[in-house]
C-alpha cells in the first residue's frame, strides 16, 4: 500500500516543479517586458537639454523657445543669426561654461566659484546675441537673462527624426528613423539571400540527397549555428567587407549588403534544419502515390512535398528572420553603423540591436540616452513579437487544415 502512495507523491512533486518552473519563466518574461517599457517610456517626459543645464539668452531677445534641431544647428555654427530662428537680426554668440576662464580671471570667479552666478548674469545682460549653456545651479533669483524653454521629446518626432546624436550637447537628437530603416534593410536583404538558398538546401537534403550525404551535411550545417556571432562578425570584417569593396568598386566596404550576407549565413542553419524536418514529415504514401501516377521526381517535390510542408517552411523562414532582426554583434562589426538613411544596399547602415549594444554601457543610467536605448529595445521587442505571432498564426492554420 505504501508504494502507490509514494509514487503518487512523487508524481505530485514532479507536477508541482513543472508548474512552478513554467510560472516562474512566464513571470520573468513579463517582468522583463514591463521593465523594458517602464525604463523607456520615461523618455517622453524628458527635455532634450542635458540634465542640470539650461540655455539662457539676453532678456531683450524675442526668442522664447527653440526646438532640439535648431539648438543643435546653432551650436554646430550652422545657424549664425537669430533671424533664422525667429529673432531679430543679430549674430549668435555661443557661450560654454568653460569659456568663463578666458573672459574672467580666477580671482574674479572666486576660489569656490562663488561669483559665477553674478558673472553669468552680467554676461547674458551685456551681450545681446548671446546664447549660453550653463548649469542650472548657477541661475539664482536675480538672474538678468532669460531661460529658453524647450518642448519635451515627442513620440512622433522620435519615430520620424532623421538624426541620431544621443549624446550631443546642449540638445540631444534622438530620431530613430535611420535605425529602424537600417534594421529593416539589413533584415530584408538577409531574408532575400538566405530564403532561396535555405529552401534549396533543405529540399536537396530531404528529397534528393543520398542518406549518407545528408548524414554528413546536416550536422555540419547545424554546427554553423554554434559559432559565436562575434566570429562571424570578424570573418565579415576581414573577408566580406574588402570583397564587397573591390567587387562593386566602392569607397567603403562596410555596407548593408555585408550585414545581409553575414546574417544570411547565420540564419541558414535555422532555416535549413526546420524546413528540412518539416519536408521530411510528408507521408511516404503521398509521395509514392504521386510517383505511381507518373509524376517525375521534380513534379512530386513541386506539387506534393512543398504544398504539404509549406507551413513548416514558412515557420522556418520566420524564425530565420527573427534571428536576423535581433542579431547584434556580427552586424555591429560589418555594417559601418552610420546613422544616415540608406538609399541602397551598398551604403553603411546602423541597426537597432547594434546601437543598443554599442551605447548602453557608456550611457549614464536612468538618463535620457539610456531611456532612448530602452525604447529602441521595446521597438525591437514589438517587431519580434509580431514575427512570433505570425508563426503562431501560420502553425495554427496548418493544424486546422490537417483536420
Amino acid at each position, binding site marked *: 500500500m505504501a508504494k502507490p502512495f509514494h509514487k503518487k507523491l512523487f508524481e505530485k512533486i514532479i507536477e508541482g516543479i513543472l508548474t512552478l518552473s513554467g510560472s516562474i519563466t512566464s513571470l520573468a518574461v513579463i517582468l522583463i517586458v514591463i521593465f523594458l517599457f517602464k525604463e523607456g517610456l520615461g523618455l517622453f517626459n524628458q527635455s532634450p537639454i*542635458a*540634465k*542640470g*543645464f539650461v540655455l539662457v539668452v539676453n532678456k531683450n531677445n524675442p526668442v522664447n523657445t527653440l526646438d532640439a534641431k535648431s539648438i*543643435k544647428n546653432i*551650436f*554646430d*555654427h550652422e545657424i549664425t543669426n537669430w533671424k533664422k530662428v525667429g529673432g531679430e537680426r543679430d549674430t549668435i554668440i555661443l557661450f*560654454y561654461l568653460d569659456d568663463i576662464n578666458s573672459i574672467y580671471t580666477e580671482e574674479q570667479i572666486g576660489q569656490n566659484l562663488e561669483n559665477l552666478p553674478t558673472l553669468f548674469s552680467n554676461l547674458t545682460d551685456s551681450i545681446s546675441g548671446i546664447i549660453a549653456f550653463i*548649469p542650472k545651479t548657477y541661475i539664482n533669483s536675480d538672474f538678468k537673462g532669460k531661460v529658453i524653454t524647450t518642448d519635451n521629446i515627442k513620440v512622433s518626432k522620435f519615430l520620424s527624426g*532623421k*538624426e*541620431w*546624436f*544621443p*549624446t*550631443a*550637447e546642449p540638445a540631444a537628437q534622438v530620431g530613430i528613423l535611420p535605425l529602424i530603416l537600417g534594421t529593416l534593410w539589413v533584415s530584408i536583404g538577409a531574408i532575400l539571400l538566405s530564403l532561396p538558398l535555405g529552401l534549396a538546401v533543405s529540399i536537396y537534403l530531404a528529397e534528393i540527397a543520398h542518406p549518407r550525404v545528408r548524414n554528413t551535411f546536416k550536422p555540419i550545417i547545424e554546427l554553423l549555428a554554434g559559432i559565436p556571432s562575434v566570429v562571424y562578425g570578424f570573418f565579415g*570584417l*576581414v573577408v566580406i*567587407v*574588402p570583397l564587397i*569593396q573591390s567587387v562593386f568598386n566602392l*569607397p*567603403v*566596404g*562596410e555596407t548593408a549588403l555585408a550585414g545581409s550576407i553575414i546574417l544570411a549565413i547565420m540564419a541558414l542553419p535555422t532555416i535549413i534544419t526546420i524546413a528540412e524536418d518539416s519536408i521530411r514529415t510528408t507521408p511516404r504514401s503521398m509521395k509514392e502515390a504521386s510517383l505511381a501516377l507518373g509524376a517525375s521526381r521534380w513534379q512530386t517535390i513541386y506539387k506534393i512535398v512543398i504544398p504539404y510542408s509549406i507551413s513548416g517552411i514558412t515557420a522556418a523562414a520566420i524564425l530565420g528572420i527573427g534571428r536576423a532582426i535581433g542579431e547584434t554583434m556580427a552586424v*555591429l*562589426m560589418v555594417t*559601418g*553603423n*552610420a*546613422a*544616415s538613411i540608406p538609399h541602397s544596399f551598398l551604403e*553603411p547602415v*546602423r541597426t537597432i540591436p*547594434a546601437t543598443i*549594444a*554599442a*551605447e*548602453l*554601457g*557608456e*550611457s*549614464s*543610467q*536612468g*538618463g535620457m*540616452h539610456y531611456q532612448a536605448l530602452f525604447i529602441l529595445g521595446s521597438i525591437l521587442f514589438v517587431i519580434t513579437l509580431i514575427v512570433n505571432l505570425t508563426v503562431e498564426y501560420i502553425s495554427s492554420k496548418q493544424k486546422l487544415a490537417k483536420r
Partner: protein
Amino acid sequence: MKRVIISVIVLAFAINSQAQRIKGSDTMLPLSQKEAETFMKNNSSNKVTVTGGGSGVGIAALIDGTTDLAQASRKLKMDEKIKLQEAGVTYKEVIAAYDALAVVVNPENKVGQLTREQLEGIFIGKIKNWKEVGGDDAKIIVYSRETSSGTYEFFKEHVMNKKNFANDVLSMPATGAIIQSVSQTKGAIGYVGLAYIDKSIKALKVSYDKGKTFIAPSMETAKNKTYPVVRPLYYYYSSKVEAKVKSYLDFVLSTEGQKIVEQVGYVPLK
C-alpha cells in the same frame, strides 16, 4: 562552537571589506588590470577586482555604492554629478594617466599632416574629398568610435570645437575594428589611442597653430606635451572609502605604477 562560527564570519567580512572593486571604462581596463596584478603581487594581503562595462556603468556603480573606484575615460557629466549629490556621495577625482589620440589614415594615402581646422572640416562633413587637403581625388571615409565612448566625446571637444560629427560617419565598436577598416579602405581616416598604432595604418602629424608646426604623435611628444591631442584618464571614488583605496591609488601614482602606465601604452603623468 557558535563563537567560532561567528568569528569566522566576522573575519570573512573583514577580509572581504579589504577587497577593492574597480569598475568602468573599457579603455582603462588593461591599465587597471595590470596595475592591480602588480599591486596584489607586492601586497599579498590586498585584493583588487577589476571589471569593465564602460565609463557610465562604472559611475552608476559608484552612485549605487557597488564599486569602490570608478574608472572613467571622460569627466563626470552634470547629471551624474547631480545624482552623486542626491545619493549623498562626495566624490574625489584622480588622474591616473594620459592617453594620446592619433589621427590615422591608410598607408597609401599621400596626406601626411593636417591642421586642427582641416580635421574639424573632415569630421563634421564639410571637407569630403582628399584633394581639398592636398591628397588624391578620392572620397574621404570617416571612421569614428561609438557616440557614447569617452574617446568620441574627447575628440569632439578637443578637435572638433564641440561641433557634432557628420551624419554619415561610420562608427565602429572598438579600436581594433577602426584599425582593420582603415587599413583596408584607401580613403579612410579615423582616430585611435597611441598604443594601437602599427604598420598597417599611418598616423598623421597634427598642427594646432594653424599649420606653423606639425607634431607627430609618439610617446615622447605626448610626454613633453608638444602633441596636442591628449586626454586624461580618471579614477573616481567616494571620500568615505578613501582609506581603503588609498594604497592602490598611491601605487598607481608611484614611479613603479607609472612605469606600468607606459608599458600598457598610455602616457605617464610625468
